[in-house]
Structures are given as structure tokens and as C-alpha cells.
């Protein structure tokens, strides 16, 4: 028993290094995708202290708009632009009808409002696009679809999907860009101020309306990117909304307020759960992936209650 837990998995890893590489790569890609979802959460959280439950459905909504428009005969590039436009409209509406009237309310209330939004968007999305899954227009958008296989040893094989590589590159670009935006600009500082105290931020003249519209739009763009990448892996369907829950441990592990935290948390969770599932999952009948991520995050939290990169919870009296 102990051998199975402590030694055998490592023996397997050494025996088939190519497979280990593949597992880590798959974990890496999954992690990047988790990180993309988490990134959307972080944006909103940083800018308003709100845990945006609707990020998952925004991913679906963005993806469906893109594919749906294309199905209606709009060329891919135009559909992309229109989808961006839809996300912009959505951002403005959310700011105007949800966030603005609720300024200064406790976090849990805002969380609830985003849940209300989720309901609304699911209903709306299904009315507009119908419930059936749609295929992502990967190649039409000019994204690579092929794969490359690397031979390793006589039986070894590592397969890299080009779309996964593209996803990683896009995610890194977004993370980089957003990190700069947050840490180097005036708006970035203002966002952090808003997250701390809405009323005080208002009192120093920060325009919450403007800032929230911008940030929700940014989150919409991130959602669109996420929708395209996840959609390329599996179809664009409302089931994706559930996958978005996976962003939660990522977020918690990385710390709610940290953009690099999202990506690092994503990678830890992505790789951790793949390796855990493949090398240890079999011992208990598999499928531990459904909770492993949360347990990994929990273990980290016990040592750092604010996540790896989160802002320390201030306790002073």
C-alpha cells in the first residue's frame, strides 16, 4: 500500500519520461486555460472587491456570440469584432444597471448580484443562441489546428497541439499586458483603491462608473479569449460554465488580487491535478480530479491564508 502511494508513481515517472512530459504539458495547458478564466475574476475583484460569479457565463456568452454570428453568415474577422462590441455593450450595461446602484454594498451582496446576472445571461444566451453546443471556428479565425509529435526513445511520443501553444502565448500576453496596466498606471492604483473602500474612492474623485465599465470590458475581452480557447478544445456550450468553477481554487491559491497569481495558481493547479490524477488517482478508483484542485488550494492556504500572492488580510485593532 505504502509502496503504491510513495514509490510506485515515481517509478512510473522515471520509466516513461515522455509520458511524464506529456502529462505535465497537458497540465500546463489546462492550467493556462484555468488561469485565463481566473484572470477575468481577478480583474473584477481587483477593481471592485467583487467576486464575479458571472465570469463563467461571460465566457460562454462571448464564445457563443462569436460562433453564433459566424453561423449567421458573418465573416470570422467581422464576427470577432462584433463579439468584442457585444462585450463592450454588456460591460456598460452591467455597470449601469447592476454595479452603479449597488455601490458601497457589502461584498456578499455584490456577489449575489453577479449571480443574478448569471441567471439572466444564461436565460438570455439560450433564448438567443439556443442550447445546443456549437463548434468553435478555430481555423476560420486563423488559429492553428495541427499538432506536432516528438519522438522520444523507441516508443516515446509527445504530442503538442498547436492551438494549445497558441493559448499559452495568448494567455501570457494578456497576463503581461494586464499586469503592466494594473501596476504601472494611475488607473491601476485607483482600481486597488476602489477594491478597498468604494465610498472613500468616491470621495477622492475616482469615477467608479468609468472604471467599472473599463474593467468589465477588459473582463469581457478576457472572457472572449477564454471562450475561443476552451471552445477549440471542447465545444462552446453552456456546460463550459461549470468548468469555470475550476477557476475558484486557482484564484484562491494565487490570491484574489494578483494577476501573476492567477497564472501561477493556474499552473500549479493544472499540473498538480493532472499529475495527481494520473499517478495517484488510480489508487482510489480515479476521478479525484473533481476535488483534488480544491484540496491542493486548501493545503496552500493553511500556510498562507491569503493565497500565494494575495494581499495580506489586515488585522489591526
Amino acid at each position, binding site marked *: 500500500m505504502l509502496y503504491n502511494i510513495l514509490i510506485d508513481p515515481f517509478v512510473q515517472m522515471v520509466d516513461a519520461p515522455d509520458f511524464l512530459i506529456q502529462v505535465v504539458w497537458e497540465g500546463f495547458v489546462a492550467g493556462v486555460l484555468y488561469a485565463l478564466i481566473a484572470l477575468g475574476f481577478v480583474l473584477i475583484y481587483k477593481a471592485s472587491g467583487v467576486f464575479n460569479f458571472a465570469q463563467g457565463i461571460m465566457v460562454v456568452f462571448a464564445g457563443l456570440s462569436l460562433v453564433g454570428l459566424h453561423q449567421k453568415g458573418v465573416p470570422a474577422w467581422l464576427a470577432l469584432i462584433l463579439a468584442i462590441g457585444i462585450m463592450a455593450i454588456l460591460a456598460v450595461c452591467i455597470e449601469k444597471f447592476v454595479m452603479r446602484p449597488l455601490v458601497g454594498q457589502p461584498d456578499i451582496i455584490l456577489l449575489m448580484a453577479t449571480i443574478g446576472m448569471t441567471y439572466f445571461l444564461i436565460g438570455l444566451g439560450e433564448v438567443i443562441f439556443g442550447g445546443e453546443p456549437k463548434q468553435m471556428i478555430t481555423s476560420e479565425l486563423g488559429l492553428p489546428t495541427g499538432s506536432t509529435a516528438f519522438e522520444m526513445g523507441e516508443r516515446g511520443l509527445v504530442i503538442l497541439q498547436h492551438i494549445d501553444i497558441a493559448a499559452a502565448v495568448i494567455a501570457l500576453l494578456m497576463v503581461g499586458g494586464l499586469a503592466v496596466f494594473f501596476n504601472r498606471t494611475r488607473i491601476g492604483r485607483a482600481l486597488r*483603491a476602489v477594491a*478597498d473602500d468604494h*465610498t472613500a474612492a*468616491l470621495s*477622492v*474623485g475616482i*469615477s*467608479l462608473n468609468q472604471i467599472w465599465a473599463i474593467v468589465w470590458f477588459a473582463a469581457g475581452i478576457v472572457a472572449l479569449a477564454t471562450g475561443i480557447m476552451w471552445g477549440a478544445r471542447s465545444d462552446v456550450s453552456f456546460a463550459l460554465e461549470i468548468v469555470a468553477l475550476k477557476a475558484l481554487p486557482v484564484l484562491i491559491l494565487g490570491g484574489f488580487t494578483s494577476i501573476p497569481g492567477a497564472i501561477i495558481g493556474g499552473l500549479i493547479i493544472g499540473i498538480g491535478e493532472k499529475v495527481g490524477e494520473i499517478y495517484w488517482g488510480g489508487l482510489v478508483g480515479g476521478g479525484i480530479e473533481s476535488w483534488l484542485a480544491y484540496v491542493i488550494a486548501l493545503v496552500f492556504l493553511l500556510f498562507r491564508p491569503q493565497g500565494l500572492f494575495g494581499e495580506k488580510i*489586515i488585522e*489591526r485593532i
Partner: protein
Amino acid sequence: MDANARQTETSASTILAVNNIEVIYNHVILVLKGVSLTVPEGGIVALLGANGAGKTTTLKAVSNLLQAERGDVTKGTIVFKDERVEALSPNDLVRRGCIQVMEGRHCFGHLTIEENLLTGAYTRKDGGAAVKADLEMVYDYFPRLRERRGSQAGYTSGGEQQMCAIGRALMSRPSMILLDEPSMGLAPQLVEEIFEIVKELNEKEGVSFLLAEQNTNVALRYATYGYIMESGRIVLDGAAKALRENEDVKEFYLGVGGEGRKSFRNVKHYKRRKRWLA
């Protein structure tokens, strides 16, 4: 009431005029029951009164921060620089030069002291150098802040946070500051300093002030005009000097009765009747 009569003839030299406003919290609690006051351009006006009189509420009504607390101005008008401002957002008001220092500090806990100060300059468009210069000015006013500039505001002491909140407001280069209890929690020496700063800004830069203050003594020394509030109404107003001479003010707010300052040890414990409420 003659105060009201004076309000109506708002002259060009008035920077802020509050006319007969009524404020209701949560749709049921009526807090301000017709408050009127004016702040002349370049004046320092003190708003005095007991706990719960409605001073904070009045200031928030002006700066439009009430909405976030589920309060509404249901009646009356507020005119700032000849413009009705009830419908403006707080940041519009800051852009127009009116900023509030909130009661209870409200620093951004996760931001450092310096970042806190810089958020104060959010609406400014006059370039980094000017902001930097003002930052130095604030640090000169409050050397303690310079020492703690890198600490997260949430961990600093109460007084340090108070300085930070005031400094933050100064950073926006306002033409009018609504100061809510600036002296709360500050060491005596600093209280004097704060009011010196108020005076200096007022004289050198022409900044107008509306300050709600419990420390009547100091407030009336620096202010030009004063209003006294009791349970949501203005009950007395007048030039600061005149108020200082008023017997009631003397007894209830300044603690100097006929026989000079009384010791806190010897205060008799009975409820005294305020003559102006009679």
C-alpha cells in the same frame, strides 16, 4: 429664521449654498429636517453640534456620498459655484474642486501611505511634477507620514491614518474642502497644526472650508462663521466671534462658565437645559 433669510440672497461671493435640505435614510429615517447654510468664497465655516445632530450627514449630502449609504436628499437644493450639484456624482464634484475628508479616516488599507496620497491626485491633469511637489508639501505638513510612507495604511496608527486622510484630500488641489472631524484622534500639538494648515491654505490659496468639528474651542478660533446643529436642524448661527461670546455656547461647547474653566472631575451630573431649544 434670519439665517435662512440670508441664504436666499446668494451673492456671487458664495461658493457653497445649501438650501433647506431634507435627508432620509433607508426611506424611513428622516435625519435632516431642513438645513440651510452658506460658505462664502474663501471662508472657513464651522458646523458644530452634538453627536447625531447631522453634521456628517450634511457634509455627505453636499459631496453626494449619501447614495452609497442609502440616504437621499429629498428636498432642497445645493449650489456649488453657481451650479446645482445634487445630481452630480462625487467625482464630478471633486473635478469641480470640492472634496470631502470623511469621518473615520477611510484610508485604503492595502495601499501604502504614499499610494493613498497619490490617489488623492487622481482627478488632476497638471502633470507628475506638480503632483510630486504637492506630495512633498504634504510630507512637510506631516513629517510622520514621510516616515511611514512605505507602510500599508491599514497597519498605521489611528492618528497616522487621520493625517493620511487629510493629506490625501489636499493632494487634489481643491478649492473647497469639507472636513469632517479633522482633529479626531490627533495629538494636541497636531490639532493646532492642522488648523494652522487650514488657515494657511485659506489665506494663501483661497481654499474655502466647511468643517464639522467637536473641538469647538479650536474650531471657533479659526473659523469665520459658525452654525450650530441640534437633531437635524440649524439652531444658531453667527460670526465665530459672536458665537464665542454667546453664553450658551460658552457653557455647553467651550466649557467656560462664569467662573472660568471647570475641571472634568467636578462636573455635576445632571441634564442641563439648552436655552435655544426652549
